[in-house]
């Protein structure tokens, strides 16, 4: 039997969840024995080259690109897992949800204390750039998500527990100390 195929991505996240995947330490050697990686920042494969078994999603959807990538993952992965608070509930990026977009952009590009040299007062609006959504959405409000691994980031032991369970077809153990929202 061929190895299960895993894909991962970071949408509106900070890459902390990917760091936490690496935090499984030497078990990563075991992992590459067990699975094959497809589209993922870990191996830098940019496009899906085949159907995958498990897709790990870090981050919620804050712009049109995130939605596009997430839908692509849904299409190519049999099982989709929301990894981390941002994927599950928007996380820190969603703290902008109570602030009008224009105010956010003005603060970032015109009025913020770190803005220097934008003398022409340009707010980036090139058609090539993804469009910001009205608010940041959790992944399961955009596509169907099969499993959730909470945490900011999810503990490495939780990721390991869940991944090995999915790969081997066993039940996840989810011990109390590792399922946390922070």
């Amino acid at each position: 039997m061929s190895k299960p195929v895993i894909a991962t991505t970071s949408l509106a996240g900070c890459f902390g969840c990917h760091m936490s995947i690496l935090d499984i330490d030497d078990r990563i050697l075991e992992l590459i024995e067990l699975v094959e990686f497809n589209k993922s920042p870990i191996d830098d494969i940019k496009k899906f080259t085949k159907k995958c078994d498990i897709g790990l999603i870090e981050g919620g959807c804050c712009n049109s690109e995130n939605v596009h990538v997430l839908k692509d993952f849904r299409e190519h992965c049999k099982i989709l897992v929301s990894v981390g608070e941002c994927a599950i509930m928007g996380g820190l990026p969603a703290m902008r949800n109570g602030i009008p977009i224009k105010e956010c952009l003005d603060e970032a590009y015109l009025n913020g204390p770190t803005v220097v040299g934008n003398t022409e007062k340009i707010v980036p609006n090139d058609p090539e750039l993804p469009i910001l959504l009205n608010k940041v959405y959790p992944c399961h409000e955009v596509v169907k998500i099969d499993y959730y691994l909470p945490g900011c980031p999810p503990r490495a032991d939780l990721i390991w527990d869940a991944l090995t369970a999915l790969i081997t077809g066993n039940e996840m153990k989810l011990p109390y100390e590792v399922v946390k929202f922070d």
Partner: protein
Amino acid sequence: MNKIVKFSIDGVECLATRGQFVVDAAKENGIYIPTLCNYPGVKPKGGCRICTVKINGKLMTACTSPVSEGMQIENNANEINEIRKAIVELLFVEGNHFCPACEKSGNCELQALAYRFHVMAPRFPFSFPIRKVDASHPKIIKEQNRCVLCKRCIRAIKDYKGRSIFAYSKRGNRVEVGVDSKLGKELTDELAQKAMDICPVGSILVKEKGFYQPIGTRKYDKNPIGSDIENLVVSKP
């Protein structure tokens, strides 16, 4: 006149003083009934419905129902825990509960209940309401994004004259718990700390007091909420 009554919880025979509220009676028998708006020593309000149990086949709030002879109570049943879980999820989507950025994380009762009921993601859509942070008072911050309107602070935090520091304002789904600006100025350090401790979530914060406890040592990092009651050694007469 004290009178001991016999009743049962999930088939286990229990004893208590007649008239005791079911949550307290259960606790004395080493049985945990989850609560949120209830606080020991404060008059019960029956607001959050987390303590829902079935008493003689009827759904009731355990924090406001007095125990009586022969009562048959169902507590730890799938059907009831599912109701409680749904309430916890509703509370999560109703406010803005960003656990990773919250000073109370690890010591928060709402979060601890979510852990206990294995909430991985709420089944309801997030409402992301627009709420304010009120930092205008000298000693405390009132973080409205996190308030679950349990009224514990209103009921329990009084100044030396018995006046409430906290009160409801506005109505309907815009109701909020505010701080009396005059009494808020006179708040003692001790009372400010008591208010922060009595708030089950991170809605009342003592200024400059956040994140002082390392992760791993906080109240619910290792021990589920209620485990202290469940691990009580109950001496039965």
